[in-house]
């Protein structure tokens, strides 16, 4: 008992002194399970997030856009890989996490349950969704768990390129033809509110927030981060001449921030509970790829085992003897 108290004391001292917690350090079970939940959700979001933009790779309007989009979607898969690896240091396995994604028990960012009907959606995702992700992830670079913080630093560097390419697509459309401008405005109208929902419920209603803040897994509250995103994005929208679809959006001199309208939390809940436009198709796409790849993974593992056993060397020798 005394020993346990000592461990807790040491853990809390590290947190208080901004020392990173590393995989070999002792940590409370709940700290471990919170991190596994959060990091694996984040990883799942990256790989499900490949799908909405992936929808436009084969139809990108120029070769430069095609190459950039392909590289970007590939980066997202790479981010998934770092994050699964970071989570694995907490004593879970990729298979377990992947199974939880496929059977629907794990969550991923709800934003990816919205469809990408036009090319402007690719711009909007880069600009808004990646923009919101960066605000959140910059904050997470200071998270208390070492492997997660380091994965975030690397991811943030790449995400800022993604955000820029998205903004550039929107900017090009906004100053293009009437049809292109409409396409851009329509995408902004559809993505704005779901993007604000990415930061999660109001602080007062956030289930996991308080404990996570105490353990410094989370460094800033949902509402703080959301406000930061809005403040920086309003000016960007103005700059390219698009209108944010919120009549209540207004600079508040006293607060030094923009005031904004109320988020439709009913929609947030519906999508979270599985009733968004693409919840079913995103999960099915992942399941289908997994099922279709089963024989490939099996062949790979059988081959690798044979190779380790030296089967192929025997075959080579036999071939020479013949």
């Amino acid at each position, binding site marked *: 008992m005394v020993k346990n108290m000592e461990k807790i004391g040491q853990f809390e001292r590290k947190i208080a002194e901004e020392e990173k917690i590393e995989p070999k350090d002792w940590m409370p079970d709940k700290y471990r399970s919170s991190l596994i939940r959060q990091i694996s959700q984040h990883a799942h979001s990256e*790989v499900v997030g*490949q*799908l909405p933009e*992936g929808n436009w*790779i*084969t*139809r*990108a*309007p*120029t*070769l*430069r*856009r*095609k*190459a950039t989009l*392909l*590289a970007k*979607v*590939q980066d997202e*898969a*790479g981010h*998934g*890989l770092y994050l*699964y690896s970071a989570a694995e240091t907490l004593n879970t396995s990729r298979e377990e996490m992947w199974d939880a994604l496929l059977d629907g028990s794990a969550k991923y960012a709800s934003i990816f349950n919205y469809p990408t009907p036009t*090319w402007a959606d690719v711009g909007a995702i880069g600009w808004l969704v990646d923009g919101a992700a960066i605000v959140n992830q910059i904050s997470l670079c200071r998270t208390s768990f070492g492997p997660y913080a380091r994965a975030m630093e690397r991811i943030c560097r790449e995400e800022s390129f993604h955000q820029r390419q998205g903004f550039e*697509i929107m900017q*090009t*459309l906004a100053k*293009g*033809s009437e*049809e*292109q401008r409409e396409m851009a405005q329509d995408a902004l109208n559809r993505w704005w509110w779901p993007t604000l929902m990415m930061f999660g419920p109001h602080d007062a209603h956030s289930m996991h927030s308080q404990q996570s803040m105490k353990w410094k897994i989370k460094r800033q509250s949902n509402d703080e981060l959301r406000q930061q995103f809005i403040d920086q994005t309003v000016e960007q929208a103005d700059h390219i001449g698009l209108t944010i679809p919120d009549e209540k959006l207004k600079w508040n001199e006293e607060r030094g921030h923009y005031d904004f309208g109320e988020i439709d939390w009913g929609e947030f809940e519906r999508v979270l509970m599985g009733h968004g436009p693409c919840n079913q198709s995103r999960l099915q*796409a992942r399941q*289908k*790829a997994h099922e*279709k*790849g*089963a*024989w*490939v*993974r*099996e*062949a*790979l593992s*059988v*081959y*690798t085992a*044979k190779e380790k056993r030296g089967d*192929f060397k025997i075959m080579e020798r036999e*071939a020479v003897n013949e």
Partner: protein
Amino acid sequence: MNHLLKYTLRLGDNALILGQRMSEWCGHGPFLEEDIAMANSALDYVGRARLLYTYAASIDSVKGRDEDFYAFRRDEAEFENLQICELPNGDYAFTILRQFLFDHYCVLVYRALSRFDKPSDQLPGLAAKIVKESSFHLARSTKWVQRLGLGTIESNLRMKRALEELWGYTREFFDYDETDRSMVSIGACPEKEKLRFDWSNLVEKVLFDVSLKLPESKWEANGGRQGVHTEHMGKLLAEMQVLQRRYPSLSW
């Protein structure tokens, strides 16, 4: 159209059309590392098409063309890629085997082009870069042919089927026309029989080692170099070119 331009565009078309097919795997690969690797190879192919088209634009007698003109504003009959590049992806065995057969063809063709002695021209340099990339692709696809050929009964069976479907399309590699012959004459393209010999040697050895027998079918594809395509090509282009066709002459 002069032969050098025609030859360059054909190489660009092969790269773009196969790159387009490979990119369809992005987000749908059999596992995460392989998803990333396939997307990365697709990116190499698209990048290669851009280099070749940009070079083509610089020697095209019609001025003002660029990479996007060749990719998005030409019709099916103007694309002169080999038909093997446009076939739908099929299963992973089909995809991997096609890469293997085609990667090896690329190594041989681009190696000859990289040795093309044309002072102050950038094409040999481009080709040298592509040879390096293709050699890497070939090492990767060869390893996969071994894994799938020698993995399980199912993977071997799938490889057999893929080989039967693909083999006739590889005959097009050696279906030389006047343009190829003209490139051979200036030392920028392997002689047909030499290409056939070198390609068959390595391919047949790798396939033999993984217990894959060459198909007996005598059917041979032809016509890609003359703009004749399979029924799949029209759909591929309809998808790829949709925005440029729907909204002509805009910036994106």
